[in-house]
């Protein structure tokens, strides 16, 4: 058996308790081990991506129990690329958290960070629905700790809301799994797909209930309207490097939707045919619309970026809800882009907030204002989907695949108008924060000539060089995604092709006797 598959889960699972138990009083050692762990995770992710790139579906049977009876981990192209994305995102964020001193503002940041990575990687790799629930809980319980990291009464109040909302989501997840188990008698995703296809048409009422309940759970995770209410307050009040890491969490929801509704309840299954797309598409359109309006209306930079996350989830889910091969390929490309762009803007927002607070109003200039403004500009271009960055390619792909959809004009209108509103809102925020600061009117007590002194003032971060390097790392990721859009899209196409031939997945997991 190929033990690389379980490595992305085992590595953080060992490292996190090690950091808590052995290194709890040594922040420097924690930082070293944490960064080394993330680098190792990146190495593992690259290895398994290389293994999955050939198109084989690799199965890891935990405890060597054969498939429908034991829990399996399954590595196909999609799970490999998602694990790789997690590792690629985690490296700049952990560097930024160290450089900005965020990890020093509370306890156990690095341990929680690695537990979070374990949960996310596990959710991407598992082939068992109940195991998916367990990994969701792992990533959630770590995220509760990370979200309230650093304390403060507003953050703790937002934390209570976040935990309560997600506990409700977990309960709903259990109801959904219970319903599906009662109908199909299995929790293994591949086995469930076989049983669902065999189910006589008159017995499918309960199955449809289960499928929609499960969709609701994933929509809560993906912050789809009207289940998005947890996101703005919790992301805006979380430490912003953590919010940047949370950019991958909404993608866990999107990943689960793609996985479950191409495999178990695929487009060709009669019982749930068209059911998911029909519900998801209007919700996704609304998500994008409300996200764009939220960006425009936000008074605070962190809330604004949180709404950017919602809007980009809207675009992503529009592509997913079409449930065609090309649309899924576009969605997979867009997942990479939107995760990196959202994380970039969260980190830039943190740079701004450390210097002047987050209110989107003119204030005196800030140290390194020009550099931060440039980074904000890059992030804004990426998120709004303007050329030359990957957001443009991503949105173009989504628009292109939506051309043949029945509601193409609605989809095009919402995406284009949404992008326009986003551009306006980000331009407004950027000019208020960065340009208006040089306005002499509000600089009553200082003379505009002195701006230079402030801009040259030392940065508030302990290691500003490392912090900016980390942010530029994400920019580099976006640039690479743009330059190598061809190969990336080719990989996405192959991944979508694999997703839409679920027979291969089922044969790989259940061992060919089906």
């Amino acid at each position, binding site marked *: 058996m190929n033990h690389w598959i379980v490595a992305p889960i085992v590595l953080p699972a060992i490292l996190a308790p090690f950091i808590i138990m052995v290194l709890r009083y040594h922040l420097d050692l924690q930082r070293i081990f944490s960064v080394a762990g993330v680098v190792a995770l990146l190495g593992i992710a690259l290895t398994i991506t290389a293994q999955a790139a050939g198109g084989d579906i690799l199965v890891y049977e935990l405890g060597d129990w054969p498939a429908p009876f034991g829990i399996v981990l399954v590595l196909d192209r999609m799970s490999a690329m998602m694990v790789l994305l997690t590792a690629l995102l985690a490296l700049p964020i952990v560097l930024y958290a160290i450089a900005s001193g965020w990890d020093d*503002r509370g306890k156990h940041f690095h341990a929680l960070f690695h537990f979070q990575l374990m949960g996310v990687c596990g959710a991407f790799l598992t082939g068992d629905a*109940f195991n998916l629930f*367990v990994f969701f*809980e792992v990533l*959630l*319980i770590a995220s*509760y700790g990370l979200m*309230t990291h*650093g*304390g*403060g*009464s*507003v*953050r*703790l*109040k*937002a*934390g*209570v*809301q976040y*935990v*309560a909302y997600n*506990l*409700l989501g*977990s*309960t709903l997840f*259990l*109801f959904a*799994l*219970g*319903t599906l*188990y*009662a109908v199909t008698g299995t*929790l293994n995703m591949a086995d469930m797909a076989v049983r669902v296809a065999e189910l006589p048409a008159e017995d499918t009422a309960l199955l449809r209930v289960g499928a929609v309940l499960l969709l609701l759970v994933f929509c809560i995770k993906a912050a789809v309207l009207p289940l998005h209410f947890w996101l703005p*307050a919790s992301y*805006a*009040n979380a430490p*912003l490097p953590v919010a940047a890491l949370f950019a991958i969490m909404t993608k866990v929801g999107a990943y689960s939707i793609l996985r479950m509704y191409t495999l178990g309840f695929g487009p060709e299954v009669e019982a749930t045919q068209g059911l998911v797309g029909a519900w998801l598409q209007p919700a996704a359109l609304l998500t994008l619309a409300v996200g764009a309006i939220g960006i425009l209306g936000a008074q*605070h930079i*962190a*809330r604004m970026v949180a709404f950017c996350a919602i809007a980009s989830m809207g675009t992503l889910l529009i592509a997913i809800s079409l449930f065609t091969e090309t649309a899924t390929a576009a969605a997979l490309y867009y997942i990479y882009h939107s995760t990196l762009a959202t994380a970039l803007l969260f980190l830039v927002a*943190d740079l701004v*907030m*450390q210097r002047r*607070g*987050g*209110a989107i109003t003119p204030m005196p200039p800030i140290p390194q204002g020009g550099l931060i403004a440039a980074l904000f500009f890059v992030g804004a271009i990426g998120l709004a989907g303007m050329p030359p960055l990957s957001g443009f390619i991503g949105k173009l792909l989504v628009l292109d695949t939506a051309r043949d959809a029945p509601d193409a004009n609605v989809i095009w209108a919402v995406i284009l108008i949404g992008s326009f509103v986003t551009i306006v809102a980000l331009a407004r925020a950027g000019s208020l924060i960065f340009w208006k600061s040089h306005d002499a009117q509000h600089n009553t007590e200082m003379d505009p000539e002195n701006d230079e002194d402030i801009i040259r003032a030392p940065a508030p971060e302990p290691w500003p060089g490392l912090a900016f390097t980390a942010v530029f790392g994400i920019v580099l990721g976006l640039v690479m995604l743009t330059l190598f859009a061809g190969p990336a899209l080719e990989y996405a196409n192959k991944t979508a092709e694999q997703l839409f031939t679920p027979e291969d997945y089922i044969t790989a997991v259940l061992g060919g006797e089906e």
Partner: protein
Amino acid sequence: MEVLVASAVGVLTAAGIFLILRRRTFPVILGLSLLTYAVNVFLFATGRLALNAPAVLNKYKDVPYTDPLPQALVLTAIVISFGMTAVIVMIALSAYLSSKDDHIDMTAQDSVDAPGEDA
């Protein structure tokens, strides 16, 4: 028995949802606990209800048995929901102690206060 279990799940869920919609943290946490009880009983029933049947196969005698898997699932669910309830109680307590306010919703003042400033 089916009616009894089904109505128990229904009543627990209804009570849980009612409590979750209250404005203070304590009833909300109670409501979440009730909901997790409801889902535990529900999971138990997903393996079909059987009376006096062990959860193991008997290879010597043909006796009825009950599905063991939901019992394992319930065990996992109980552990997780117990842990999560403990976490939310702790976070809610520290939120209450730091702001002297146990309302679940954020006040207008909360959203005006810059979320970035730290203790």
